[in-house]
């Protein structure tokens, strides 16, 4: 299967569960039941399967788009348990999708800014939102430190935790600085007209 054929179909796949499952298949070829367990363990709290059978639906969708394929010879025997793997084209698409998440995050932040700007005519409401937003940032940033000690089996999952934590903490820093800017803008709006800055 070529990467070109995969790319042609990926535009339709919106389901974060399907993409998340694809990530697991890329990490290590597995059969469906094992994938369901790995999904729960890996994405716990972030994404969930509606039931174990959800993984079969998701795999079928991925297979239809050519994003996963059965490992040859893995579905033979009296109780066939096909194992799934990801072709190279799917790996490349997965990488592109991950990078695309940044644009999604920026879209959400843009929306929040517009919603907040709509409150600027009611400074007392805007200030309340800004204060609450800042407090949320502070609480997020003061989360407990991720564990540093791990045996070799735990190292991979703890690395993921640390990556998540670091990204969170850095993002919160940007939000905190943004709040200071917002306050000054709000203050400037409330002041008599004068040349800004």
């Amino acid at each position: 299967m070529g990467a070109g054929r995969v790319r042609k179909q990926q535009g339709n796949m919106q389901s974060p569960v399907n993409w998340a499952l694809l990530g697991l298949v890329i990490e290590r070829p597995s059969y469906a039941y094992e994938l369901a367990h790995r999904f729960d363990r890996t994405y716990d709290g972030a994404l969930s399967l509606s039931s174990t059978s959800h993984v079969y639906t998701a795999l079928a969708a991925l297979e239809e788009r050519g994003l996963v394929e059965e490992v040859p010879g893995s579905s033979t025997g009296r109780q066939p348990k096909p194992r799934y793997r990801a072709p190279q084209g799917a790996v490349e698409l997965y990488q592109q999708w991950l990078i695309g998440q940044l644009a999604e995050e920026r879209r959400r932040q843009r929306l929040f800014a517009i919603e907040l700007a709509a409150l600027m005519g009611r400074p007392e409401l805007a200030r309340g939102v800004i204060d609450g937003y800042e407090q949320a940032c502070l609480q997020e940033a003061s989360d407990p430190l991720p564990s540093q000690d791990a045996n070799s089996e735990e190292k991979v999952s703890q690395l993921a935790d640390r990556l998540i934590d670091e990204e969170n903490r850095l993002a919160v820093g940007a939000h905190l600085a943004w709040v200071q800017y917002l306050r000054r803008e709000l203050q400037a709006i409330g002041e008599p007209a004068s040349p800004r800055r």
Partner: protein
Amino acid sequence: MSLLALQDVCKRYSRTAGERTVLRDVTLQLEPGDLAVVWGLKGSGRSTLLRIAAGIEAPDSGSVRFEGRDLAQADEGLLGGGIGFPERGSRSAEGRGVLDHVMVGLLAHGVGPRAARTRALRALERVGAEQTASQRVAALEQDESVRVAIARALTLEPALLVIDEPTKGVDQLARDGVLALLRSLANDGIAVLASTSESTGLAGADRALALSEGELRGAPPAELATVLPLRRPRRAAG
């Protein structure tokens, strides 16, 4: 009675362009074992706040009490006594060996050289910097430098540590080790008041505070905690 209590503290600085208020009615209490970290942008007044909390600088108005004593009225400063203010090696300390540097406070307090050496080594072990004992202060990495500064303060067994930007300049991978040290000191019952200009320096704090426009803002009230917009789920262990 709180270990440290700042009440309505105000501080203004005169500048050619006029007066600037850096602290506006700041109120803060710390109890033994608290780890409070103040975040603020450059020029926000966080270092001023820490110097006032440590009794190094006096507020224009308001009060600062440590163990019930008004720091402004204290005949002798409490630095080097109940309050520790770790500072990374000054230029004068750079040529000195780490062990000598850590012992200085003890010697100044009349502790004999042998006992001072033992206590200094114990403090270095406590902060995870025992391997630096024979090094020069100038040769230390940034994280080691912070640990050594904390060890020096710990030799005098403070109840409160006030530390300005402990993670500034510290390598990203070493930073959490410094924060974990502050956390463990608080877990041992020492109150820690730290500052940071980076949100990464807030991790593990009991209280994360923000200083802006001279006002100190803090953790959300409990009723708001359930509707926080930012909180992202963490992965479960295992």
